């Protein structure tokens, strides 16, 4: 409903014009100023339901024009503050003709001002295309002051904020305005406008999450606007009626936009068109159509540097230019094909289908769509062109051909590769059957089948599709790439980089571990993962992947040196968790941390994730990464806490450990008494029931299915939130200091253990309580049923009770220890362990290398993050050279000195001295080393086949923690001393 405050002076009708008596009476009821808003809304709804076509027109006119009803004004036509959605003033639905008439009358009432609005909107658009930030600010201010804070203006503000990211004044101006629109109050409409235009979030998942959000029972008005944002030209009559009311609720300007955009693409149909032409002054219609029939100058828009993605950027921005006829036509042609495969709302109306046919008239078959051409970067607004389209329109064209085009022969292998490499999101946009039809799911060509299976699996995530994909991939790699997955990756890298990148993302450790034909042993799995990371680093110039590969190899080696895992104590595999972090958090983590240390302040105030609006803020994004990581840490069934619980608790170990032979075997006589035996049996049953309850309900990761689980993965609970704030600040500081995501990952692992400790304490406390409660048998318990006064038997039974209590207590105490963090499994490493690992590694190259190792005496220290990689590298270079050139059975002495410098810093000096070969001399060794390190250090990191000593010296220049690298020669020993300045 929209009743404004101006121009009510000349009503064409009176109450007497209404033919229906009940409607007339209800209208009279509205004259009273005493009714509350709810009562008024009820009456208006009753009037809507009871009005004939003729009466509806009269009622609308009276409500809009008669001063008698001026007191009912709920909505400003030109609101000074953005519309808030209480929902109470939304009226029941009615015939579309009635709603359209009402909204058209509103336009008519403000026609003159709306003509001026059209002109001002065009001027603002020109400023947004080519003007300065100041002219944009002036234009927005004018629009706000003249026409109010409308949805139309909201989208312009969102665009302006994106267009001028570095203009502080404009950013502040837009930020304040967006705050008024509710961005800070988590208003979904405000966020949809910003996030659709901005490209921080991928479009299809963003749309899915926003539509899921409004589907979750929010107001019909919000739901309408969100749905409209993603599909602005609409056809279903009920939907359009609802949309008309929703837009009208925001302002008359938004109502105008909705009516005119549909008018200029012929979406109303003849009957409704006639209503618009009859009521709305032609001056307004003409002004609109004349002004907005021009093409949007896409070359003036900032659509990004990558030509293949420019059309998607434009599509995302297009909602800000929806007043233009060409944009409306594009959206009408495209939107119904660009819907989620989970959304059933993609069925096209006849007009949409005709618009689509016209737009894609050049897309006859897949060959005309999938072309091997360089991207022009052009944005096609009128007609698809296979030679000029970007990735977005090519994707839509493929969907169009698949659903509406002519059948064509199966695609060749080259065409299939080209198709998937030049389209995006097919897994989200097509059904599994469509994907198989398109990509040759039943093809004899293994590469085509692999691509089809991969996209289907992306679409469904079903176990059976995962199995098919793994099967096809292995067959393909074995038959065409000699069983070498990396050769396949290289092949894709050379022929279809997006497909190659997809393979890289697909090959998580979880996926690789099940490629049993390619990798029959676990070592081969990790080696393949490391090689893939190295390939990814080279192919996509990503240093983080190379670092991750290196860390993976070191961790694998360290794990072997550490020996068997203590399989009883709670355990989370740091290597696998590290791989998960690498595979799943890099992008979001770097986006959140890149913002810089100013996040620190916000991080210290973090409270919860709330809804979508908060999710955009960097500290919340960081917290979300931490939350996801902690979920994985707790709930992963292969290496997380839940995996431990699955193996150790649910699998029967807990019960077996606590119950097997709990009752001592050497008391048979005393327990022969059937009443005593019954008492004991009852106690055991109670004990067993409690253990069962622990296993099935309490020693569980809390979830919907396990609401009583004591391990709660939610980081926003009152017990954890303070720790979480500290963790966020720590991660921000750590990244600021080291700029190393690997270091941040390791810190995240440590923090996960700290979060878990809170819950482990609760578990230990529950076990402690049980020891004195149901885990203890009172002294007189077993003799309770005895009637005879046999003190001797009673004493013996008391002794049995005591022994059972002691035994149960000991076992419960042991179980308490299961729920403590293992001390030797942090993702860090003591220096001594690194030393042992490297000696072992070098021995694999030089099997006859058996040095007399003299380990460091005294304290060791743990190294974290990048630091332990540096020390590993140092050990490797020194010990490798000692084995290669030195005495293979001689002395290898390792010493460690730690010197505290300040409260927060300390110097550590690591020395590895090795004995030279019997037939060598210190002088000769010195000369060889000096020769090896002579010349510029610049090429030290890039030239292979050297001793590595030059690289070692180069570390001093490159790594700020490395203070010095010295080489000393004495007593037939060469001593490499590595000096580091590190945090305490």
């Amino acid at each position, binding site marked *: 409903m929209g009743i404004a405050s101006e121009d009510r002076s000349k009503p064409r009708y009176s109450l007497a014009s209404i033919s229906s008596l009940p409607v007339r009476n209800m209208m009279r009821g509205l004259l009273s100023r005493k009714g509350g808003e709810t009562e008024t809304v009820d009456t208006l709804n009753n009037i809507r339901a009871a009005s004939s076509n003729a009466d509806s027109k009269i009622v609308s006119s009276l409500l809009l024009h008669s001063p008698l009803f001026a007191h009912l004004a709920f909505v400003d036509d030109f609101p000074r503050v953005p519309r808030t959605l209480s929902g109470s003033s939304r009226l029941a639905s009615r015939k579309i003709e009635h709603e359209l008439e009402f909204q058209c009358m509103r336009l008519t009432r403000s026609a003159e001002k709306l003509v001026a609005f059209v002109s001002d909107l065009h001027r603002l658009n020109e400023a947004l295309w080519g003007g300065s930030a100041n002219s944009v600010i002036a234009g927005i201010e004018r629009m706000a002051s003249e026409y109010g804070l409308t949805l139309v203006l909201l989208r312009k503000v969102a665009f302006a904020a994106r267009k001028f990211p570095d203009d502080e004044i404009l950013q502040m101006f837009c930020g304040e305005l967006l705050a008024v629109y509710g961005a800070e109050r988590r208003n979904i409409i405000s966020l949809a406008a910003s996030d659709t235009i901005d490209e921080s979030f991928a479009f299809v998942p963003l749309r899915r999450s926003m539509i899921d959000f409004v589907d979750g029972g929010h107001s019909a008005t919000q739901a309408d606007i969100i749905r409209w944002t993603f599909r602005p030209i609409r056809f279903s009559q009920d939907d359009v009626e609802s949309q008309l009311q929703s837009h009208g609720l925001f302002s008359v300007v938004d109502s105008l936009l909705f009516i005119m955009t549909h008018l200029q693409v012929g979406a109303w149909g003849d009957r409704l068109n006639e209503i618009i032409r009859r009521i709305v002054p032609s001056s307004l219609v003409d002004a609109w159509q004349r002004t907005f029939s021009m093409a949007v100058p896409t070359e003036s828009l900032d659509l990004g540097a990558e030509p293949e993605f420019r059309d998607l950027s434009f599509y995302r921005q297009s909602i800000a230019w929806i007043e233009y006829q060409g944009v409306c036509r594009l959206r009408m042609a495209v939107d119904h094909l660009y819907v989620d495969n989970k959304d059933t709302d993609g069925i096209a109306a006849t007009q949409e289908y005709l618009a689509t046919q016209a737009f894609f008239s050049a897309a006859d078959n897949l060959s005309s769509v999938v072309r091997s051409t360089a991207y022009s970067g052009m944005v096609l607004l009128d007609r698809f062109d296979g030679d000029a389209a970007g990735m977005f329109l090519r994707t839509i064209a493929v969907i169009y051909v698949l659903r509406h085009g002519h059948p064509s022969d199966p695609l060749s292998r080259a065409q299939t590769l080209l198709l998937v490499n030049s389209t995006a999101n097919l897994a989200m946009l097509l059904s599994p059957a469509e994907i198989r039809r398109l990509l040759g799911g039943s093809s004899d060509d293994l590469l085509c089948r692999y691509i089809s299976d991969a996209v289907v699996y992306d679409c469904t*995530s*079903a*176990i*059976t599709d995962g*199995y*098919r994909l793994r*099967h096809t991939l292995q067959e393909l790699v074995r038959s065409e790439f000699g069983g070498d997955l990396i050769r396949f990756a290289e092949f894709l890298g050379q022929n279809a980089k997006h497909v190659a990148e997809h393979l890289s993302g697909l090959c998580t*450790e*979880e996926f690789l*571990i*099940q490629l*049993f034909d390619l990798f*029959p*042993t*676990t*070592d081969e*799995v*990790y080696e393949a993962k490391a090689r893939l990371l190295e390939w990814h680093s080279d192919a996509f110039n990503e240093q983080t992947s190379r670092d991750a590969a290196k860390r993976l190899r070191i961790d*694998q080696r360290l*794990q*072997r040196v550490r020996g068997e*895992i203590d399989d009883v104590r709670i355990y989370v*595999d740091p*290597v*696998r968790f590290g791989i998960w972090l690498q595979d799943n958090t890099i992008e979001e983590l770097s986006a959140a941390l890149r913002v810089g240390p100013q996040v620190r302040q916000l991080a210290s105030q973090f409270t919860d994730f709330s809804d979508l609006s908060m999710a955009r803020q960097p500290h919340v994004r960081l917290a979300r990464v931490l939350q996801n990581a902690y979920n994985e840490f707790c709930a992963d*069934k*292969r*290496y997380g806490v839940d*995996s431990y619980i*699955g*193996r150790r608790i*649910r*699998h*029967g170990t807990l*019960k*077996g450990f606590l119950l097997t032979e709990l009752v001592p075997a050497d008391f048979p006589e005393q327990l022969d008494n059937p009443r005593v035996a019954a008492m004991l049996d009852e106690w055991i049953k109670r004990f067993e029931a409690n253990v069962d309850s622990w296993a*099935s309900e309490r020693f569980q990761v809390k979830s919907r*299915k396990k609401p009583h689980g004591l391990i709660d993965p939610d980081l926003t609970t009152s017990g954890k939130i303070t720790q979480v704030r500290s963790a966020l600040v720590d991660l921000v500081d750590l990244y600021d200091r080291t700029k190393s995501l690997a270091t941040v990952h390791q810190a995240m692992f440590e923090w996960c253990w700290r979060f878990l400790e809170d819950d482990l304490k609760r578990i230990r406390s529950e076990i402690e309580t049980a020891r004195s409660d149901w885990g203890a048998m009172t002294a007189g318990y077993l003799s309770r049923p005895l009637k005879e006064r046999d003190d001797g038997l009673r004493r013996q039974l008391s002794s049995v009770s005591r022994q059972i209590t002691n035994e149960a207590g000991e076992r419960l105490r042991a179980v308490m220890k299961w729920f403590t963090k293992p001390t030797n499994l942090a993702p860090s490493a003591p220096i001594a362990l690194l030393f042992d690992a490297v000696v072992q590694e070098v021995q694999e190259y030089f099997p006859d290398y058996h040095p007399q190792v003299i380990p460091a005496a005294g304290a060791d220290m743990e190294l974290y993050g990048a630091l332990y990689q540096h020390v590993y590298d140092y050990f490797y270079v020194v010990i490798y050279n000692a084995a290669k050139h030195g005495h293979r059975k001689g002395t290898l002495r390792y010493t460690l000195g730690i010197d505290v410098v300040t409260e927060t810093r300390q110097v550590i000096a690591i020395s590895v001295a090795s004995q030279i070969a019997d037939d060598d001399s210190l002088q000769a060794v010195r000369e060889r080393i000096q020769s090896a390190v002579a010349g510029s250090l610049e090429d030290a990191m890039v030239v292979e086949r050297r001793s590595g000593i030059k690289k070692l010296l180069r570390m001093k220049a490159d790594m700020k923690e490395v203070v010095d690298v010295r080489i000393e020669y004495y007593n037939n020993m060469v001593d490499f001393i590595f000096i580091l300045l590190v945090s305490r």
Partner: protein
Amino acid sequence: MTDVLIVEDDTFKMERLERCVVEVTSLRPRQAVSVQQAVQALRASNFDLVVLDMALPSHTVQAGQSPATSLLTGGLEVIMEVAFGNRTEKIVVVTQYPEIDIDDTSYPLNEAHVALTGLFGDRVVAVIQYESGGTAWEAQLQSVLRSS
């Protein structure tokens, strides 16, 4: 019924399953202790029946090698090897867990059989809950062995 493959990583449970099979068939079953080993065994031979645990390690752990990954529904991989390889083996699942996760849904064991049949046809002949202290599972397994 001649050839049986037992896929089970718990030594104690393996012994009990083996005893149970021998009692009925008088033949020693083949054994696999990981998904990878089970897949290898299936590639090498044909069986009449596979007695299958659900939670299995990915690989058979070897000295000096990286640890295997614990796959809570690793048994499904073995079922799929049979189902998608158009093999003739019948399968009986014997698990200690009260439920089986299939495609992010947890099915209690009495419903899991229906779900597995829906996905893989009638080659999964029974889903039995194993209890270390109980014997009901033995009777059920023997019944399956006799009727197979």
